[in-house]
């Protein structure tokens, strides 16, 4: 076998390895989703969405769970969006290049990989007990905000970095102040990317169970929350509880609830893609 032939063979081998690698991920995911849909779709109905939890699997619904999830997500967004984007802008645009900001940067990257249960314990100690918020939506949302802040900060910085420096130079050359440059040029240009990061971070938060259980999400909550200091339950906690029941029918309920949760996540990701495309096509210099 000569060298050229051998190289072509290597090329082929690598190509097929790549194909197998990418397919296997999708196949596993497809099997999971297919299995969940197969199990749960029989329970999906309007009643399932609007009914309260019950000891009878067939009468049990996820109304309070998804309401809790919506409340938690709205407050998590309200808290994490301004904080995360603000921090990202500061670090990228204002922070001086010194040891202190390097230190900050490394810590933020490290925080992104801290297990979520640790945030839960922090939330329990600080928000629930020290700040006396109790097992409330607000405490849960603050905890989840902490959890996703590092992701938002990092993606905000990446989005800002992607704005060509010629734009900034041009704006400065026209006499714009730093804030004018950021507000009128940098932010609009990078907002698609920032939003994508925020929404992906929120999609992660929506599936979190461990920190919310620690913070005190309950299981049986027969009323939709009415203010941020109310007790709550969320979809993942409801799913977790159903899965651990002895009765098979509750497992089916769990599968149906997973479909709803997946649906919400898909919608959020869809919005992220839409916004990114919209902003990207709009920006023309």
């Amino acid at each position, binding site marked *: 076998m000569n060298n050229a032939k051998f190289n072509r063979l290597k090329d082929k081998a690598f190509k097929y390895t790549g194909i197998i690698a990418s397919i296997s991920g999708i196949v596993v995911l497809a099997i999971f989703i297919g299995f969940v849909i197969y199990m749960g779709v029989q329970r999906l109905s309007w009643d399932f969405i609007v009914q309260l*939890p019950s000891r009878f699997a067939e009468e049990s619904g996820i109304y309070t769970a998804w309401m809790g999830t919506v409340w938690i997500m709205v*407050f998590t967004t309200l808290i994490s969006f301004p904080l995360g984007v603000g921090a990202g802008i500061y670090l990228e645009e204002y922070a001086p290049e010194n040891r202190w900001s390097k230190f900050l940067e490394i810590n933020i990257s490290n925080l992104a990989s801290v297990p979520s249960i640790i945030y839960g314990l922090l939330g329990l100690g600080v928000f629930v007990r020290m700040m006396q918020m109790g097992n409330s939506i607000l405490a849960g949302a603050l905890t989840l905000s902490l959890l996703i802040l590092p992701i938002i900060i990092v993606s905000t910085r990446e989005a800002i970095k992607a704005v060509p420096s010629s734009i900034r130079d041009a704006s400065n050359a026209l006499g714009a102040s730093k804030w004018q440059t950021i507000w009128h040029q940098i932010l609009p240009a990078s907002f698609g990317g920032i939003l994508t990061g925020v929404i992906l971070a929120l999609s992660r938060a929506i599936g979190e169970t461990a920190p919310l259980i620690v913070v005190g999400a*309950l299981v049986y909550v027969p009323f939709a929350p009415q203010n941020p200091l109310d007790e709550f339950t969320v979809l993942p906690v409801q799913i977790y509880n159903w899965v651990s029941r002895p009765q098979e029918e509750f497992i089916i309920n769990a599968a149906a609830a997973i479909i709803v949760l997946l649906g919400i996540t898909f919608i959020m990701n869809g919005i992220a893609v839409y916004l990114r495309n919209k902003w990207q096509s709009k920006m023309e210099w």
Partner: protein
Amino acid sequence: MVKKIFALILFGGLFLYSCGSGGSQQEIKIDGSGTVYPITEAVAEEFRKVDPDIRVSVGSSGSGAGFKKFTRGETDISNSSREISEEEKALAEENGIEYQQFSIALDGISIVVHQDNDWVNTLTPEELNKIWKADSEVQKWSDIREGWPDEEIRLYGPNTAHGTYDFFTEVINGKSGASRTDFNAVADYNVAVQGISSDKYSLGYFGLAYYEENADQLKLIGIDAGDGPVKPSLETVKNGTYKPLSRSLYIYVAKSAAKRPAVQKFVEFYFDNAGELAQDVGYVPMPEEDIKAQKSAFRSFASDTVAVN
């Protein structure tokens, strides 16, 4: 556009916030044992039909975690599948929490093996102790009784967060929490059911409800505590012949909560319906007269506090 999005998010939050009419309704907060949870959930669900204005919320963070909240005064009622421990009592005292314990149902802990296991039918408490004690030397089935297969035994049980674990270790090993550690400690009993039903040489223990729901995949072992082998069932747990692995399930009611009419109404409703509802969700109802005794005990506990105030 940026401004619009900010405004949208802000308004969304304000809208949700303004929906709130203030949490002035009557609330009853319950947390604790995951074993007791299904009963309390059922009671809360039925209670809602009687009095929808009283908001009852129930958590299932485990007996121990439940007592942690209860002894800090964070909950009104604590579910438990074991009695309160000395440390927890001390904590309650330290925080000035007065309470009383009430039994609400019974449960049997079932010992199960694989369906195709044809050598075990009964075990004695001594044999269980030999298997599960802290420094157990049992590695193979033949270590338990001569003549049993020379195969490795694989053990399943609840992890330390469960009241079932505390109770089992106390009864079988003499001390709550004393157990060998080289077994599959599960957080979710369904994992144990799956493990045992797919492994011919396994053995495990958990609440009766989990056996009953999976009776076609598991084999139930009788316990011989001296009077011949007895298997756990509604009957044998209720009449007390299934020994020593029958237990009471409890609710603990804080004295400050028992003062409130809403809590009184709920707890009395609990006693009136616990029998039927416990059976609905897989547990064993207490004998009628015992329930009555618990109810009157609660009445005097609650009225006593009213008199003081």
